[in-house]
């Protein structure tokens, strides 16, 4: 294969990564933006989504599309419910103190990871894609499912954007983000908004995981990389900015895909992490973000 098609393949792979990353990072970004909570357990919600997707598709059987659709609906709901419980039981009692919540979410990370290891086991398990149509390009065939992941992610991102900017729920969320005390004074149930946002953030990660699990397998440690990459995306895109998050996700996903195809993936990670740390040190508002409050 020549360089051109090789690059195209790398770019396509990168776009799939970007699509999943954008959804995951958006969840992290919403939680941070509205609640000012850095959710270290976010990657574990992602992992839970994938593991649940495996469990649901195995339980339902039959045509792969049936199980997959069920997983796409049920897995995020379960993960959202777990997140809601965690938020009510732990984060709310900590008054959303930024440092205490980081320690608490680290605790959640360990608990969820260990429970997944105990009940799901250390194996990586595959989930069958709902359809196995291959699109034939002149140089290579490409999985139609992967392209549909990109489309689904774009759809979901647009939907989230519409909810945030055009609906009452979005308005309430933005008001809480802007100034929670004033929002409270105007009768917005800030506590309930926080619970909802935390659950929504976890659900976005779970949906991303269900989408990716037919491509990469479900494993109890699979939450580590998305967590780190989401942090990177959210920081580069500017904390709490949706447009920045999407742009950064595409940027990071593409460069990750291309760099890891031509160089060592470890080196790619080292460079990306170091660059982001430097961004945080020298330009804390992010590359695209506006001044954060």
């Amino acid at each position, binding site marked *: 294969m020549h360089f051109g098609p090789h690059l195209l393949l790398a770019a396509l792979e990168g776009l799939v990564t970007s699509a999943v990353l954008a959804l995951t990072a958006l969840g992290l970004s919403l939680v941070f933006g509205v609640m000012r909570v850095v959710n270290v357990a976010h990657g574990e919600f992602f992992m839970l989504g994938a593991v649940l997707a495996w469990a649901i598709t195995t339980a339902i059987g039959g045509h792969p599309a049936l199980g997959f659709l069920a997983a796409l609906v049920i897995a995020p709901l379960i993960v959202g419910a777990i997140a809601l419980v965690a938020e009510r039981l732990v984060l709310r009692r900590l008054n959303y103190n930024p440092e205490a919540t980081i*320690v608490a979410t680290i605790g959640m990370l360990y608990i969820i990871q260990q429970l997944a290891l105990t009940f799901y086991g250390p194996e990586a398990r595959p989930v069958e894609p709902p359809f196995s149509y291959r699109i034939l390009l002149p140089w290579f065939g490409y999985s139609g499912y992967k392209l549909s992941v990109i489309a689904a992610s774009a759809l979901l991102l647009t939907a989230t954007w519409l909810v945030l900017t055009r609906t009452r729920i979005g308005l309430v969320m933005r008001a809480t983000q802007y100034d929670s005390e004033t929002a409270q004074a105007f009768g917005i149930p800030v506590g309930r908004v926080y619970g909802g946002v935390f659950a929504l953030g976890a659900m976005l990660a779970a949906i991303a995981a269900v989408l990716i699990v037919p491509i990469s397998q479900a494993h109890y440690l699979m939450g580590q990389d998305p967590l780190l990459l989401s942090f990177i995306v959210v920081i580069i895109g500017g904390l709490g900015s949706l447009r920045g998050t999407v742009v950064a996700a595409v940027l990071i996903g593409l460069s990750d895909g291309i760099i890891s195809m031509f160089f*060592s993936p470890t080196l790619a990670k080292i460079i990306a992490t170091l660059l982001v740390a430097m961004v945080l040190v020298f330009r804390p508002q992010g590359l695209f973000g506006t001044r954060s409050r």
Partner: protein
Amino acid sequence: MSEASPVKAYALHLGVVGLLFVLSFLLPEYYHGLLARIMVLAVFAMGYNMLFGYVGLLSLGHAMFFAAGLYGAGLAVIQLGWSVPAAFAAGLACGVVVSLVIGLLALRTTGVAFMIVTMMFAQVFYLLILYFATWTGGDQGMVVPQPARVLSFGATSLELTNPTVRYMTALALFSIVLLVTLAIVRSRYGRVLVAIRENEERTKMLGYDTFSNKLAAVVISGIICAASGAAYALLFGYVGSSFASVQYSILPLLWVLLGGAATTLGPLIGTLFMYYVIDITSGYTSAYLLIVGIALILLVLFFPKGILGSIRQRWLGWLP
């Protein structure tokens, strides 16, 4: 508070050191080895406490300081064939360099950004260890050969692999760091650090250069953690990348939170307690990370001051 009772404070700390010395002759073999390890790791926790407890800077990347000492000392012995004291010094030097660079960069941020930045630098450090697997042994790690682990003074030589020598060396390091920490927190400089923790703006207004004070604290913390790492490599003979992973940045936080942040003896108590909890529960379950997770959540929810912190608040106000 502590001004009134310097004698009491020093007596208490010397008493703890004495108790640990006596325990060396009383403990059965298994716990003897375990306690030596706990003392070395408690030094790590004390280094962490220096920054987290007294300056209020929560770092999520201290594994890199520990690993700087661990690899600095380990590589000096394995790759360069240096003697034990020289290797220990090399470990400390690595700790100084790493903490100085990280301090200069990370201290430009505060709060949550500081936590994330330190975590990311530690991750870079960890990945670098994996990337240069030819020298570092990658995720397999390296074993420091037994014949190299000997302290020699002229004709006499002490083998660090001997349990008693190992215990006493660990105790010596622990006692030195404990007393140095006590001296630091009781000094003028220690008061400035606490003032920064309580109200940085006001401390700045009173004319203190908070940045260089914080930087010094990061370096002191880095040296102590590196000392712990170097001692770990030389005493226990294993240098591995897992010690640089995020988990080893979280563990000292857990130990300090449990024992009591900003107490000199808290790190020891936290490390000891956590090790015993894991030791006991490992009889029932292999899921020790679950215990760590639950402990972290319960601590921040119900005992944010930790064991010694609560004791100091209720009964012993003079506790340093």
